[in-house]
C-alpha cells in the first residue's frame, strides 16, 4: 500500500478538544513506524497525554523509545514532551554557549518571562524543537535520525496562530537570531515536507471548527493534510432499516420471530427497548451523515476511525494504527 503523503516528514495533528487528537496522533505515529520508519511523536501542551496513552511514566525532556514495530521491519517510535523552558535553555546553550549568562537569565526570571509573555517566543521555541528534530541528518554525531515526526499540536482554534510563528513575532523582533530562527521554521512548515491533519467527530461544532481551521490554515499558506473522523459509530443497520426505524415502522412481528429463533426470551419490554435503541441509532446516524457530507465538501482526503466501545487502551491504539495504514494515511 502506498502512502497518501509521500515525502511528508512532519505530520502536525490538531483537533477540537474531546475529539481524540492525541489518540489519533499516537495512532498515526504507530502507523508510520509500522512501515519500518523511525518516528518521533511530540507533545507541546504539557499534558503528558502520550505517557498516559502508552501507559508509561511521565516523559522527560528527552526522546524516549515507547514502542517498536513487531517483526523485523525495524521501525520504532520515540516520544518527546517539549517544554518551552527546557527548549529555551537548550537553544541558548546550543547557539550561544552562554554559560554564566544562561544561569543568570534563569535566576532573574527571564526564562519564565520569555516563555510566558514575550509574544510568540513560546511558540517559536516549541516549533523550533520540532524543526530541529525534523532537520537532523544522519551525519549528526550521537543524534537520532527520524524519518517522520508527528506533532500532537494545540487545538484547532489555535493551530494557525501556533504554526504561524512569523506573524506572531512580527512587529516585535524585526531582526536578530530569534527572527531568523522563526524564518527557517516557517519555511519548513510551509513546505511539501509538512502537512497539518485535522481530527474531528461527526458533530456540528467540531466539524464547523474543522472547516474554519482549514480556511485559516489555507489563508496562512500552511499545507492542509487530511481530516481524520474519529469516534465513528458502528454501522449496523442498512439504509432501509434506518429509514424504517426513524418512522417507527420496523417489522415488529418479524423481529420477535427472529429473536425467538435465536433462543431469546421475547418480552414486549425487550422488543420496545431494541426498537427504541434502533430509533436512537438511526437518528444519530442521520446527523452523522449530514456532518459527513459537510466534510466531503471540504475537499481533502478523509479517514475514519471507529469508536472503541471499551475505550482506548494500548490494544485499541494498535488497531486504530492498523486502520490508518489500511486507509493509506501512512
Amino acid at each position, binding site marked *: 500500500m502506498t502512502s497518501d503523503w509521500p515525502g511528508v516528514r512532519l505530520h502536525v495533528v490538531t483537533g*477540537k*478538544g474531546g475529539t481524540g487528537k492525541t489518540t489519533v496522533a499516537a495512532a498515526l505515529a504507530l502507523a508510520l513506524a509500522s512501515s519500518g520508519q523511525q518516528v518521533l511523536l511530540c507533545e507541546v501542551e504539557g*499534558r503528558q497525554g502520550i505517557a498516559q496513552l502508552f501507559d508509561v511514566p511521565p516523559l522527560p525532556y528527552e526522546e524516549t523509545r515507547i514502542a517498536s514495530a513487531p517483526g523485523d521491519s525495524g521501525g520504532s517510535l520515540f516520544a518527546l514532551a517539549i517544554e518551552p523552558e527546557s527548549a529555551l535553555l537548550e537553544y*541558548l546553550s546550543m547557539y*550561544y554557549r552562554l554559560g*554564566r*549568562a*544562561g544561569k*543568570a*537569565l534563569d*535566576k*532573574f*526570571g527571564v526564562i*519564565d*518571562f520569555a516563555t*510566558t*509573555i*514575550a*509574544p510568540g517566543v*513560546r511558540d517559536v521555541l516549541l516549533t523550533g524543537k520540532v524543526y530541529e528534530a525534523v532537520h537532523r541528518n544522519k551525519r549528526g554525531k550521537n543524534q537520532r535520525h527520524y524519518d517522520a515526526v508527528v506533532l500532537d499540536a494545540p487545538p484547532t482554534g489555535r493551530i494557525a*496562530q501556533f504554526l504561524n510563528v512569523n506573524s506572531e513575532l512580527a512587529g*516585535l*523582533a524585526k531582526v*536578530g*537570531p*530569534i527572527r531568523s530562527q522563526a524564518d527557517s521554521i516557517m519555511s519548513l512548515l510551509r513546505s511539501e515536507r509538512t502537512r497539518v491533519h485535522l481530527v474531528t467527530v461527526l458533530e*456540528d461544532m467540531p466539524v464547523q471548527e474543522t472547516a474554519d481551521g482549514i480556511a485559516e490554515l489555507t489563508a496562512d499558506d500552511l499545507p492542509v493534510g487530511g481530516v481524520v473522523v474519529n469516534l465513528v459509530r*458502528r454501522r*449496523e*443497520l442498512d439504509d432501509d*432499516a434506518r429509514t424504517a426505524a426513524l418512522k417507527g415502522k*420496523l*417489522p415488529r*412481528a*418479524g*423481529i420477535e*420471530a*427472529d*429473536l425467538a*429463533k*435465536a*433462543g*431469546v426470551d421475547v418480552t414486549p*419490554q*425487550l422488543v*420496545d*427497548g*431494541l*426498537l*427504541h*435503541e*434502533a430509533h*436512537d*441509532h438511526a*437518528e*444519530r446516524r442521520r*446527523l452523522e451523515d449530514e456532518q459527513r457530507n459537510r466534510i466531503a465538501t471540504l475537499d481533502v482526503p478523509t479517514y475514519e476511525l471507529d469508536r472503541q*466501545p*471499551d*475505550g482506548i487502551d494500548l490494544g485499541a491504539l494498535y488497531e486504530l494504527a492498523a486502520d490508518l495504514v489500511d486507509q493509506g494515511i501512512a
Partner: protein
Amino acid sequence: MTSRRKGRVGPLASKQDTGPALDVDALLDDPATEIIVCCGSGGVGKTTTSAGLALRAAERGRKVVVLTIDPARRLAQSMGIERLDNTPRPVPGVHPDAGGTLDAMMLDMKRTFDEVVESQASPEKAAQILANPFYVALSSSFAGTQEYMAMEKLGQLHQDAQKSGRWDLVVVDTPPSRSALDFLDAPERLSSFLDGRFIRLLLAPAKGPARLMTAGLGVVTGALTKILGAQVLRDMQTFVAAFDTLFGGFRQRATKTFELLQAEGTAFLVVAAPEPDALREAAYFVERLSAEQMPLAGLVVNRASRLSLTGLSGEQATAAAERLASGTTDAPEGLTAGLLRLHAERTRLVARESRLRRRFTAAHPTVPTAEVPALSSDVHDLDGLRLVGELLAG
C-alpha cells in the same frame, strides 16, 4: 486520596455508580445562590450546560445574566448573541410567567482587558499601553488572559447586579482551557508575573542609574539584546514602565475576585463527560475546590449513554446475533442481528461509563451528581436549551 477529610458522612464501602443526586432546581431557586460557575475540561459541554441552567433559572423566576466564553455559533444564535460586543443583551423568547429574565453575553477578552486599563490609567498613559506590542500580546494571546478576564468580567457583572438590581444570579462559563484548573490559577499567575523579579529589574533603569549597577543585570540585558535585539528590549521596558502604575490595581482586583469565588453565594458546578480524561480533571477540580475552600455544588456528567430496559445482557445479545447469522430470518436479512449487536455495543459503552463514574464516586462519594443523557442533536434553539435544563434537573 487527599480529599479524605474529617467529618465525611457516607458509606465506607459503596457500589453506587454516582454520588447523591444533585438537586439543580433547589440550587437555582435558592435566592442565596448569586453566582454559578461551570467549570471542567474542554469539549464536555460546559457552555451548553451554563446556558441551559441560566434559561431554566430565568423561567423559574430568577433575573439571570449568563456569561459565555466561546459558544458554538448555533448556541449563540439560539440566545440571540451572535454579535460579540461584551455587553449583556436580553434573550428573546424566555417565558416571562415566573417573573424572571435572561440576559446573555459573550466574553471579548481583549475588550475587557482594554477597559480595565482605561479605567485604571490616565487617557495618555492608557493609549500608550494599548499600543505597545507587549500589551497587545498579553491581552490577546497570553495563556491565562482569557481565564483572568472571565473572572474580571464575573466580578464586574456581580458588582453591577448588586448595584443596579438588574440581576440576582450570574451564571458563568469558564474558558476551554487545557486543564480545568487553569482559570483558578490565572489571576495569581498574572499578578505574580507582573510582580516578578525580571519586571522589577527592567524597571530599575527608570528608577535611577544607581540600580543599574547590579551585578547580574549587565549580563542579562547583554544576553537579551543578543537574542531578541535591542528594539525588543526597549519595547519591553516601555511596556513595563507604563504598566507599573497598574500593578497594584491588578493584584487587588485578582484578590477580590478570588474572595468572591469563595463567598457563600457562589456555587461551582464541575462539568464532565464520561471519559477518563474529563473525569480525571473533574476529580482534580473537586479536590482543588475543597483545598481552596470554594463552594462545590456538584458534578454534572454530560453525554451519558443510556440503556433501554431490555433484560438482555450484552453477552446474550452477541450470542443471539451469532445464532441468527446462519439460517433464514423473518425480518429483512441482518436486521434483527443488527439490532442485537447495537444493543451489545451500547451495553459495553454503558458498562464502561459506569466503571469510570464508579472510580470517581469511590474517591468522592459525597459529591452530588446530575447525569445528562447524550442528546441526539445539537442545541440550536431555546427549546433545545430548555430540554438541557430539564435533563439537568432530572
